[in-house]
Structure formats: structure tokens, C-alpha cells
């Protein structure tokens, strides 16, 4: 079995076909940037893009994602290391504190900005309310999304 991961075909090791995508990514495939927070789709720490839409990796399996494009935090930057605009602004505004939820926050923001180029505060609230952050970075997450939006051509 194969999945399409960060634009490349990726074989799925035997025994992991029906395991949650979260653990397939983190353990045999070594993409540990997608993080475990609850395993129930309640915290957003494991958010990845499936065909460009934010999904919780803990609720997906490789078998269910045949033919779909999976993007993780490791696949956002350009091959030469140039950061995705969302990553760059996250860095510029120093959004992360402990940082554990931030891969998921970044993936959620990327998906939001794909769908809505200039989100309002209410749209940010709606899209990001499923991303819990215990450190209290919400204000900077909001500011970062606005800043990316301002720099994005409509």
C-alpha cells in the first residue's frame, strides 16, 4: 500500500495500514512534527492537510487516504528550505511558546488562508477554535494569520 505524502509516493509498512495516520507518520515514517495531543480530534495538534483541507491525523488511516494528497508540517517549506509564508510569519512574530501545538496551528492557518485569502476575526475564530493552545498564543496566532493575509495577493 502507498500513500501520497508531501508530494511523494510513500510505501506504508506492513501492520500500519489501519493504524491512525498520526502514528504512521510519527513512528515508522519519522515525521514527528505532527503531534499527539488527545487522539480524539479535540485539540488540533495533529492537523495535516488532506487535499489542502485541514484534517486531524488521529482520525485518519492510510487505507482511507488512498489517492489523496497528504501534507504535513515537514512538507510545507520549499525543497531548498525556504519557509512557507505562514511558517515565516510564525517565526517573525515569534508565535510559539512551548510550541507543541504549533505544527497543528500552522497547518490550520495554511488551510484557512487557502480557502479564505483575507479572513475576518470571526472567520479566524471559527477556523482556529479547534486548535487548543495552553500557553496562550492565541493573540499571536491571530496576528500572524492577518499578517500573512496582508502579504498575500488576492
Amino acid at each position, binding site marked *: 500500500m502507498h500513500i501520497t505524502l508531501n508530494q511523494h509516493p510513500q510505501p506504508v509498512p506492513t*501492520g*500500519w495500514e489501519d*493504524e*491512525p495516520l498520526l*502514528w504512521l507518520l*510519527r*513512528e515508522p515514517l*519519522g*515525521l*514527528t*512534527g*505532527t*503531534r*499527539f*495531543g*488527545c*487522539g*480524539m480530534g*479535540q*485539540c488540533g*495538534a495533529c492537523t495535516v492537510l488532506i487535499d489542502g483541507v485541514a484534517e486531524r491525523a488521529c482520525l485518519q488511516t492510510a487505507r482511507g487516504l488512498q489517492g489523496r494528497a497528504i501534507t*504535513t*508540517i*515537514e512538507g*510545507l*517549506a520549499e525543497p531548498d528550505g525556504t*519557509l512557507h509564508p505562514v*511558517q515565516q510569519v*510564525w*517565526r517573525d512574530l*515569534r508565535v*510559539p*511558546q*512551548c*510550541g*507543541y*501545538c*504549533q*505544527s497543528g496551528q*500552522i497547518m490550520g492557518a495554511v488551510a484557512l488562508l487557502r480557502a479564505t485569502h483575507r479572513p475576518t476575526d470571526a472567520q*479566524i*475564530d*471559527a477556523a*482556529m*477554535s479547534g*486548535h*487548543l*493552545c*495552553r*500557553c*496562550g*498564543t*492565541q*493573540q*499571536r*496566532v*491571530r496576528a500572524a494569520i492577518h499578517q500573512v493575509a496582508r502579504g498575500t495577493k488576492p
Partner: protein
Amino acid sequence: MKRRQFLAAAGAGALTVTLAGCGLVPVIPKRPTSTANDALGWIRHEQGRYTLWLPSAEMGQQISTALQGLAATELGVPPAQVHLQLPGTRAIARVRATVGSASVQDFALPLARACATLREALAQGQTSGTLAARDIAPSALRSLQPRTGIAKETAVAPGQLHALVTGQPLFAGDTRLPSLLYGRVLRAPVSAEINSRPKAWDETAARADPACVAMVQHPRLAQMGSLGLGIVARTPSALDRIEAALAVQWQVEDGSAFEQAAIDARIDIDTQLRRGPLQHRLRKDDLPADTAWTLDLRMDIPLAAHAPIEPRSATAQWLADADQEGIALKVWAGTQDLFYMRDVLARQFNLNAERIEVQACRIGGGFGGRTLCTVELEAAVLAQAVGAPVKVQWSRAQEFAQGFQRPPSSHRVRARVHGGRITHWWHALASSHILFTPAAMPVWMQTLADLAGDSGVARGAQMPYDVPQQRIEFTAQRLPVHTGPWRGLGAGPNTLVVESAMDECARHAGADPLAWRLQHTTDERLAQVLRRAAAEARWPERPASDATTLRGRGIAGGIYKGVSYAAAVADVEVQRATGQVRVVALWCAHDCGLVLQPDGVRAQTEGNLVWCLGMVLHERLPVARSGVAAASFADYPLPRMGDVPPLHVQLIDSSAPPTGAGETAMVAGAGAIANALRDATGVRFTRLPVRSADVLQALAARG
């Protein structure tokens, strides 16, 4: 240049202290004061490259950024040239736990001296060997020079920011090893205060799962009274299936069952006061014999969880060692106390501490909750049992149930106001232990420790205001749910109560809440943060209510650990129809002395304000059936994106010695929000959290 020889000084071996007749004494965390010579082991120069071994745990407080920046300034190189490394216990001399927001206070001076020593040696052409730190005066250290104009930030050190935004491995759970297996220790669904052990389980059903590796029974799988049953599997999620298949039946000590009501009754302040003076008194001035109090306010604050987004994790690997001298056990851990972890493991496995290496990993949210040896021991026991490296990461339900919690507290404040001043103040509070956490201390030992009084419970109860006659007293009652340190220890709850009572006194006196506070303090730094927060918020421009929405504004301030100052102003809106409360803005002024890393301090202050918001409006950890009744974030709501208002943080430009910044605003934010709610609704909410149903009920009662 090599690191100093430090291993001899680091000391070796587990603590072997015993008290006759008291049984085994738990390992006590050591709290050495780091010297500049210790710090020479943190900074190293090799072939033009500097490496900084971080002496404190990084859990989002940006200590890595602060110390990297400090080292760079002192060494005279750009921050990016100082390579950051999280240490293992064999890499640096013992350092104290990362607690109490004391890292800058404890480590800045020794590190600056070590870096200055290194810089001078390099300048004189010395490129190898070990150095002895010079006792350089702080005024001669470049990195500790008072700076003016906080707004003009110099190049901020990168810390681990790039690794975070690109998803690189940093946390304990990101550890990967060949042949790694996954473990979990199942425990009875009751508090570890109650003796429990596995009685029966369906091993055949569990072994039918192809990913099942082993069931592990071992006395070292005990955490206080809870003896667990270990399971090991080939994938992490197989642990869920195996747990379900095992359907463990538990033997639970008879007669120990409890519910929420038992906890509430145990700390009920009025019940405690009826028995006479409380056990510990911070102030014991004379009080009037009559009962003509202007204010008599009772407040009750519930249990609360740390709820970090990272459930704690550790990976353990046993190493074959023919000569019995090298490393026997390696553990990757996200802990606030690396060396304590090592000492506990050494005691448990009867090993020389030097044969254990505990490797620090970034912590996905500490908040005081990562101080005990839990997953680290579980991983080590399971790894030894199966002869392969094992990673343990607690489930979300385990993270809620098996750690320790912020204790609930019950308060009564009585105050007398006369002639425009508070003349008498009596604050009595009952809570459970914080520093003498029952999660690590057996009853007998806690009883002994209690003679001294748990200063964590008392933190923040001292009046920051001038009142001539004061009685401040407290008692810590051991509860069946384990309690311990939480961000700010007792300061969050205690200052919330103090500032609520101050506000009520101002109302009785007909005084403006800001003016009232200013006239009750001669502490210029406290007055300064109060004035600054009020000025930023345009204090006199108070929001007005209308037909649908009640609006209010509140202020509060305080002093954290006697050294850091904060004040906050909150604006809230309450929907008359639904009781829904929204904090619409928060302003905070923070004085933590010389600010080494302004952006990091601002971030910490923002985080504190969000904690305060959660504390007042959202958080209560439910108890039922003899344990914590929250298993997911659905049972323990946290503030979300839409709940967090604009946070306006002002840092006071100060040349006073740097103090802690990670918990200060806990003394201000909650009180400001509570006082704004009072201002909006005319109701003093005395039980937390204040949810919309509570508001509706109160508004209806008010008529």
C-alpha cells in the same frame, strides 16, 4: 577549550537518607545554587563554534532564547553563533529544578561570568584547556548592563524557533530508536491516594492482537497507592485495543470511596474556622473583639488541571554493559527536574546515578506539572522487562487523572473600613498541599513537613497593601485527589481573593478602585504598575451598559514572590439574555526588573493573562467515583481562539536586578476579570468558574 572537570563535583549516588521508624524516605529534590564555575560547564568553545548547554528546562518560557542571547552578548558574537544544546545529566553539573520562574534569577549571573571568562581567555589567545571563572562584578558584565528603551529590541536570539515552525523533533515523544516498542501502564480508575491493584484480566484476548508484545507485572509499577499493569505493543494505538481487550478488573481498598462533596467539606473554610485558629499564621495582629466587619466575603476556588497539550512522555533504553561501569540506562524525558529524575531512577533500580543518563527534551507545556518521576519510571520498567527500548506517552485521560492538580481552596476575608482606610484585615484560607505534594510524600512525611507550613499554599496571601492590623492564616488539608504546583502556586487563587476583597472595600468606601489601591500602598513599584495599566486602558473612560449588554471594567494588582510586580485592567461584556461573558480587552503592566528578552516576557505575560481568563471563566476539574472525572478536553474546557481578547502588555523599563517573569501576571489578571464582572453585573461571584448559567441565575436573583 574543554568543559571544566565537573563530574567529581556533581556528586554521585542516590540519596540514602532514612529516618528510623519512618520507612523509606522519598528521594528529595536537591536545589543547589549554580556558580560561575558550574556555568563554565554550560558554555564551550571548539574550533570557532560555541555551544550552550541549557541549564534549565525549556517549556515555552523562552529561557533558551534569553540565555542564548545573554551568552551571545557576553561573548560578543551574534546569537545564531551560539549553538543550543539540551543537556543530559552527564553533560553538566547538577542544576536545580526549573520551577518558580527563577531561571533568569538563578542562571543569568553565573552564565554571564562564565561567558566573560571564556571571552577574555580567547582574547588572550588561549584556545584549549579548562578555566576557572572570575568573580566579575555584575556592573562589569556586558549582558547585564541596564538598557533603556525596552521597545528598541536588539536582535532576538532564535532559540528553537526554526525547529518548531518546521516540525523538527524536539519533544520527548519525538524520540525514535531502532526496535522501539510502545508501552502503557494501566491503573485503577481511582486516585493514587487509594491502594489499588489489578485483580484479573483477559490475557488471551489481549494476545490475540498481533501487535501485542507483553503484559508486565512489577512492584516498581506503583505510583503511591496505585499498582499498575504494564502493556507493551508494536504500535502506539495497539495499546488502546489491548487495554480494551484486557478488560482489567481492579482490586480497590475498601472504605476509601469519595465524591466531590468530600473534598468540598474537607476544605470548607467555615468548618475549619469553627475549630479555632488555623494551623499556620503569616500575620497574627490583634483584631477587634466585636464582629463589626465592613466586609465578610467567602470565596471558593475549584481543583484545576495543568492540561498541557503534550501528554507527558519518556523513552527508556537499557544498554548492555560488560564492565558494569558505563551507562546502564538512558531515558529521554520532558521534565522540569532532570537530576531528580535520575536520582529517583537510581534509587528504584539500585544503580549508581552516574550509570543513568536522563536526556532533557523540550517540554510541551510544564506549568509546574512536570516535576515528578512518572512516565520515566514506567518506561524504564517496561524497557527492562521486554529487553527493548520502550516509549511511554500518557493518553489524554491519563494526563488528566494521574498527575497532580492545583488544589481547591476556600477563603473567608473579613475587613473593616474606617475613615477611608482599611484598618483591619483577616484572610483565612483552607487548601491542600502544593510544595509538600501528596503525589510524592507519604502521609507521615507530609505531617512532619507540615510543621513548617507549605509556603506554596500561602504564596500570594500576604497583603501587598498597607493595612495596620492583619491576620492571615491558612491550613493545608491532605485531600484524596493529589495536588501540587500549578502556575504561580497559591498566588493565582490567593491574589484573586485579595483583590476581590479590596474591590468590595473600595465600593463600601465609595472610592474609585484605582485610587483606593494607590492610597493603600507605599510600594512605588506596585503603584507604578497600577498607574501604568490604568493609563494604558484609559481607566476613567468606563464602558457603559445598554439594553442587551452589561459592560464593566475592573482592576487588580499584586506582587509575585516579593520581587515581581503586575497590574491588570479588564473590560468585560455580559449578554443579559444568555448570561454569556466575554472579556473584550485586557491591559497589563509588568515590572520584573531588568528585562533580558522583552518579547519573551511579553509572551509569558500574554500566556498568564489567558490562564487567568481560563481560571475565572472556564476551568474546574470535576471529581467523581473516587477520582478525577475528566477524561478529555470536552470535560475540561480551555479558553479558545474566540475567547481571547486583545492583550495589551506594557513592560516597565527598569534597571533593578532581573526577577521571574513567567508567573507574575497570575497576581493581576484573574482579579481584574472578576472585578470587571462585578462592575458589569453588580454581583460578586464567589465560586469559580463563572459560567453563563451562573451569570443568568445571579442576574435573575438580582432582579
